[in-house]
């Protein structure tokens, strides 16, 4: 293939990694193209750390971190963001919880004041807790009104028997309903510590000054106990699992999940290339076959993301017209069997590598995107993953693709979920469609 345009290390160029004496990892990167600074804090806690009966705690905690601290009273965090013309938000995954602020470069340091304070003094006012519980339940219900949200929730619960990746990140409704201030508070104190966090600052600032301020604000926060090590590991799957979700939709949907390895595993690169060969862009294999030639689906995707523990490779599709889910499934299986047996062409491999490379560059334009890349990889693995990333992608061979396709995307390692009509499509819907 033609060579890479730039090395992936450009993403970590000029990144300075500092570890405070209390264990807080600080990543700073000066970017002076826009007068903007994004700061993010990443806690190494997510739904993977939750016990049975207490799912959704990491996500609920994320909401509470905006509800006030000893120093910043209720509403003040958002109000300060407003007054300073910034943006803030947060997100929770299986493996981490992350918070960010973006501000113009002349007033961004308020973000550090807030993050330092809420690392230790989240308020947990009982009244606020109960009001926010209702909000979290509404968020959970919004997900259940989405066909993909519902199907993937059931699929993951079936694919994993033991590992907490089986639980929805927002939690199961029953668990969220009986969450208490006490359990949330205990969870916060167990996981929110400098030695369980990474602070990332990217943008238009002076590193020396910023590091001094970070040390002043965060340096005196005592380290916490080492968080419990996650000991659960998923036993190998020994045969196909299947499930059907009945729902009000008249459009059948298919989701297949294959057990796949963790970020640290050498097979991740070949699996990422395989996902692109299968379904990224109109020239991809499954798109050409199923959307263009067979015309059985309107949508097809293949996704494999990095995660701390072994996770899932997903293929999803939406049926078109009267085509059956079985027909769709059979085409996918056939294509995977072909790749496992005869591999992919040199051109397909080359195209996929270029797509990954370009995506890596094109999606890192904003300071927030850069902060997300740095924080996520530091939290899941370590920054050297980025340095070698494109090189490792470039080294993937057609034989590697066949190998991972055969090894992971096989019948005995898959969970197949179908979302089918429950026959409830109402008269009003019929009428609406005919309008």
């Amino acid at each position, binding site marked *: 293939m033609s060579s890479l*345009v730039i090395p992936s290390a450009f993403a970590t160029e000029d990144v300075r990694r500092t570890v405070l004496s209390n264990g807080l990892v600080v990543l700073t990167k000066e970017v002076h*193209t*826009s*007068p*903007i600074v994004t700061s993010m804090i990443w806690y190494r806690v997510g739904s993977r750390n939750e016990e049975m009966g207490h799912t959704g705690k990491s996500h609920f905690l994320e909401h509470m971190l*905006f509800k006030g601290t000893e120093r910043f009273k209720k*509403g003040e965090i*958002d*109000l300060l963001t*407003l*007054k*300073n*013309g*910034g*943006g*803030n938000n947060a997100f929770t995954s299986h493996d981490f919880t992350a918070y960010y602020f*973006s*501000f*113009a470069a*002349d*007033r961004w340091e308020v973000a550090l004041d807030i993050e330092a304070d809420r690392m230790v003094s989240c308020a947990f006012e009982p009244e606020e807790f*109960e*009001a926010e519980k*209702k*909000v*979290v339940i*509404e968020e959970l219900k*919004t997900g*259940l*009104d*989405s066909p993909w949200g519902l199907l993937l929730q059931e699929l993951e619960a079936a694919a994993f028997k033991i590992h907490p990746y089986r639980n929805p990140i927002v939690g199961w409704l029953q668990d969220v309903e009986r969450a208490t201030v006490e359990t949330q508070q205990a969870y916060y104190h167990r996981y929110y510590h400098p030695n369980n966090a990474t602070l990332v600052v990217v943008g*238009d600032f002076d590193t020396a000054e910023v590091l001094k301020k970070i040390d002043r604000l965060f340096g005196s926060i005592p380290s916490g106990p080492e968080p419990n090590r996650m000991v659960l590991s998923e036993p190998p799957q020994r045969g196909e699992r299947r499930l059907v979700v009945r729902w*009000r939709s008249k*459009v059948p949907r298919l989701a297949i999940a294959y057990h796949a390895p963790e970020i640290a595993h050498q097979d991740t690169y070949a699996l990422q290339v395989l996902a692109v060969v299968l379904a990224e*862009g*109109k*020239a*991809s294999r499954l798109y050409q076959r199923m*959307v*263009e030639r067979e*015309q059985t689906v309107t949508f097809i995707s293949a996704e494999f993301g990095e995660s701390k523990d072994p996770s899932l490779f997903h293929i999803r599709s*939406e049926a*078109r*017209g009267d085509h059956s889910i079985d027909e769709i499934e059979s085409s996918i299986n056939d294509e995977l069997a072909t790749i496992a047996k005869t591999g992919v062409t040199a051109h397909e491999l080359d*195209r996929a590598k*270029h*797509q*990954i*490379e*370009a995506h890596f*560059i*094109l999606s890192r*334009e904003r300071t927030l995107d850069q902060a997300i890349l740095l924080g996520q990889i530091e939290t899941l693995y370590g920054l050297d993953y980025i340095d070698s990333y494109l090189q490792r992608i470039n080294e993937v061979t057609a034989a590697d693709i066949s190998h991972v396709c055969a090894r992971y995307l096989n019948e005995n390692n898959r969970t197949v979920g179908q979302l089918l009509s429950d026959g*409830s499509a*109402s008269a*009003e*819907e019929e009428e*609406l*469609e*005919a309008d």
Partner: protein
Amino acid sequence: MKPTDLGVRRAFDVHTHLLPNGLKVLLVENPSIPTVSLTASVFTGARYDPEAKAGLAIMVSRLLDEGTATRTSLEIADAIESVGGAIETDGSFERIIATASVLNKDVDLGLELLADLLIRPMFPQEFVDKEKERTLAEIQSAQDRPQVVAGWAFNELVYQDHPLHRPSHGYPETVARITRPDLLDFHSRFFVPNNVLLSMVGDFRVADLLPEVQKFFGGWVSKPVVFPQYESPLKQTAKRTKFITMPAQQLNIYLGHLGISRTSPDYYALQVLDTILGGGAGFTARIPQRLRDELGLAYTTFASITMTAGMDPGRFIAFIGTSPENMKLATEGLINEVRRIIEEPVTAQELQDAQDYLTGSFVFAFESSPQIARFLIHAEVYGLGFDYVEKYPEYIRSVTVEEISRVARKYLDSENYTLVVVGPVAEDGNLMNGAE
């Protein structure tokens, strides 16, 4: 680059170039990363679709890259994807857009492909048939989402006979009627260089790129464009209500009415009003603060009148997704906040905070090349001027408390509104028994 004032940024160095055939080209050099964003905007869209063939413009936009006189659909996809680039074509009520995102070394290829699919699309019958079926399937799939169903019904009631009453991709029966000759005719009427803006932002030198633009687009022949005319939409003078039954966890509620066009002189005062009423950072605005933060009624609730302002009047929309038992509380909550901002002046502090937010966060709209390319199109369509980035803070700073009251009274209505509710609710507005 350093901010000269809180959040104020320097204007871009925009190079404007007009080809002899009338194609307007806007270029901004942005060497921060080795990529280029190429966007061609054709000034036509679903607002001009005949009612009987609603969906025509969007179908044209989606078929542009499915085969040209010189390349098949697969050849186009393979050519751009092989260099890691992407081509997207889509449309709205006002515009048809074709975008190529490429690494800087591939800018010529991006231009060549864009020119090919804009100038010489073939709309092969096979792809027309496929696209019609796909659109029908997508319409059916979208009906699974209560918020989409609510949005469509809301537009029908607010716009009545105006073209914006319909979904931009049309209805199943109008899509079914569209033929290949319709697509070719549409293309020949609107796809002429004097009706196109090409904006290019990224890591290139203007002097190097202009000859390439001339090479690929110079032979395109201009001709006059005749735009269909239609009546302006009418403001509603009575309440309109619709309840649509759908088994779901939540009720999706839209409340609002006709809004303003982007060129309204009151746009900036209303943007400040939006920030106070239903937008802003986090949950600082009145509606999210009251309905989400205090009452815990929703994960999502917002309101805005400027968000949908375009060439045609947009809509004032207040939205909430909530559990069925909260219907009354949520609807009244939205109405109360609309009434309150009409009847009572906002506080000086609210005004100040909203102004600080809008001027301070303005800088985030110009971080990436695609964002800058979008701005160039907006500036051109609405006559904002390329010094808009410097003038905007002043537009916002000059808004007063009195002006917000004036525009609230002029444009918002807490009596004559459209209300659409979708979820476990009966047609008469009563909750369904056994709602999920």
